[in-house]
């Protein structure tokens, strides 16, 4: 297949590179040198080539073993049985793979003796984050036995609304809540870890990560005025805030330009993930630094 060919070629490419290096070092050898230096260079080169040869020997052996294995020993009288077996085994491999693949939907599960254990995976911007599980008992009524969903997620509310009538809807709605929570948490964590220099005080956050309050500066070292930001994420299924308030610390009345700045900051927080906002502050600062230096 294409994939194995590519990999095979990459091994060859790697070996080729080793060879080229060896050719180059050989060229060096041909320059006028003392007899001793020539000797040691030759020894080094021989060692290199020995290693390369051993690697190639191992590679060839590996490939030949692979070929042997795939043309398995087939006894003539068992041919028919093995063919059917082969078909079933391939099907089994395929089904096993498909079963594994369900975790990529963000929602997966395993049958248990009493029902099902569901696993919900979360991610934000491609970063795979925490997973949560839920043990469901399939009885009348359907109920949740154990789970690792945090207490501040409205699980009871959701299950009362949807669990009995539409389990798919229940599960995917729960996925929404958990993914949004994970995403908000990720943004707050990144702010604290990567942009601590921009914060003029601790980041105040609740466990649901839907109310954040902090004082910050757009330049970490600069003389810019500190701003106070308050982000409220009313919609728990979203990772962007619904209400944003930005004020210049201790100032009520602002001149037009300052008001413009304040409003644009508010808009930034409303439309971009939290850590991206600070990344753009950092970039602006870098550009400013560059212009000062040059």
């Amino acid at each position, binding site marked *: 297949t294409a994939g*194995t060919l590519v990999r095979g070629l990459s091994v060859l490419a790697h070996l080729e590179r080793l060879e080229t290096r060896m050719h180059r070092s050989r060229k060096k050898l041909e320059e006028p040198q003392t007899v001793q230096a020539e000797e040691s260079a030759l020894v080094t080169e021989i060692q290199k080539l020995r290693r390369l040869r051993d690697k190639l020997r191992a590679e060839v052996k590996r490939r030949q073993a692979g070929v042997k294995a795939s043309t398995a020993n087939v006894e003539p009288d068992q041919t028919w049985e093995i063919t059917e077996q082969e078909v079933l085994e391939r099907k089994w491999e395929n089904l096993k793979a498909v079963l594994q693949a369900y975790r990529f939907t963000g929602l997966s599960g395993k049958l248990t003796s009493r029902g099902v254990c569901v696993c919900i995976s979360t991610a934000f911007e491609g970063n795979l984050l925490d997973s949560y599980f839920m043990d469901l008992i399939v009885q009348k009524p359907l109920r949740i036995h154990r789970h690792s969903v945090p207490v501040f997620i409205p699980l009871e509310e959701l299950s009362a609304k949807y669990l009995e009538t539409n389990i798919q809807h229940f599960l995917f709605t729960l996925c929404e809540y958990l993914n949004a929570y994970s995403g908000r948490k990720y943004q707050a964590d990144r702010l604290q870890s990567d942009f601590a220099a921009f914060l003029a005080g601790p980041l105040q956050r609740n466990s649901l990560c839907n109310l954040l309050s902090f004082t910050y500066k757009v330049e970490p070292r600069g003389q810019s005025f500190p701003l106070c930001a308050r982000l409220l994420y009313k919609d728990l*299924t979203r990772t962007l805030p619904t209400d944003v308030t930005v004020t210049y610390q201790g100032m009520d009345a602002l001149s037009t330009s300052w008001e413009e700045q304040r409003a644009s900051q508010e808009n930034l927080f409303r439309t971009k993930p939290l850590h991206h906002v600070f990344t753009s502050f950092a970039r602006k600062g870098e550009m400013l630094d560059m212009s000062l230096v040059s």
Partner: protein
Amino acid sequence: MDARRVELSALQAEIAALRRACEETPAPAENATRGQKSFQEIYQSDSEGWESSKDLRSHLGHLESEILFLSTLTGIKIRNYSKKTKDLTSTEMTEKSIKKVLQRHRLSGNCHMITFQLEFQILEIQNKKSLSSVITDLNIIMEPTEYSELSEFVSRAEERRDLFMFFRSLRFFVEWCEYRKRTFKHFKEKYPEAVHLAEGAASSCMGVRSASQPGFEVVIVWRIQIDDEGKVLPKLDLLTQVPQRVLELDKNRVIETAPLGFRNLLGVLGIEATLESLIKLLCTEEHARSRH
């Protein structure tokens, strides 16, 4: 020195021959699922050897029922999946106990009438403290493409490499499509004369005309939109089609304000009740079929 030069050329010759041998022998498949393993590898990977086809069949049956269960649970049917792993750990990384692996995944299936094919890459970096997994690339192909709302959504999901959001929103989108279809069908069956589905129940428009007032028609446009964050929301609008003279007679501008009134009513009564009251309003002289 001569002996060494001899060894050098011998090594070079051997290396050339080994390279040729490498090129001639195909590399065995590694880390690739989908039936490329040898029987020996299958036996080794599973502690139970297959006693007979019967044994294998019962296990297959169990697997199939598990998959059927998962597809019922999620509403998503995965038909094929394969994965390839590439070790990107350099020698420097190994020294620092860091492992770097790139996984290439390919998966295809369907969610009701929508089929999808995904290819994505996950980069896994393991150091002493933690394991980080990041989706570094996502490619999505979907059919049918007549749901225009979906193409924009797909590009956004690809851009954000948000695999889970893709499945979640897809599932909600399909659920809304099914609900819309059922609702339109229901009203068509209940008020066959008044309700008019020009493109069938799967379309986004439902026309309502009054038999007693020809030329007077309203069209309910029910779109299903997916916003920036992957939230699936229904958006209903009312379009009125009335003869000019009727408009002239409409001093209170009832018809002009009808779309707004419709939207307000939606907020109060919900979709089904709003549609029902609208149809009833237009067909006061209709003899509607009684509800079963």
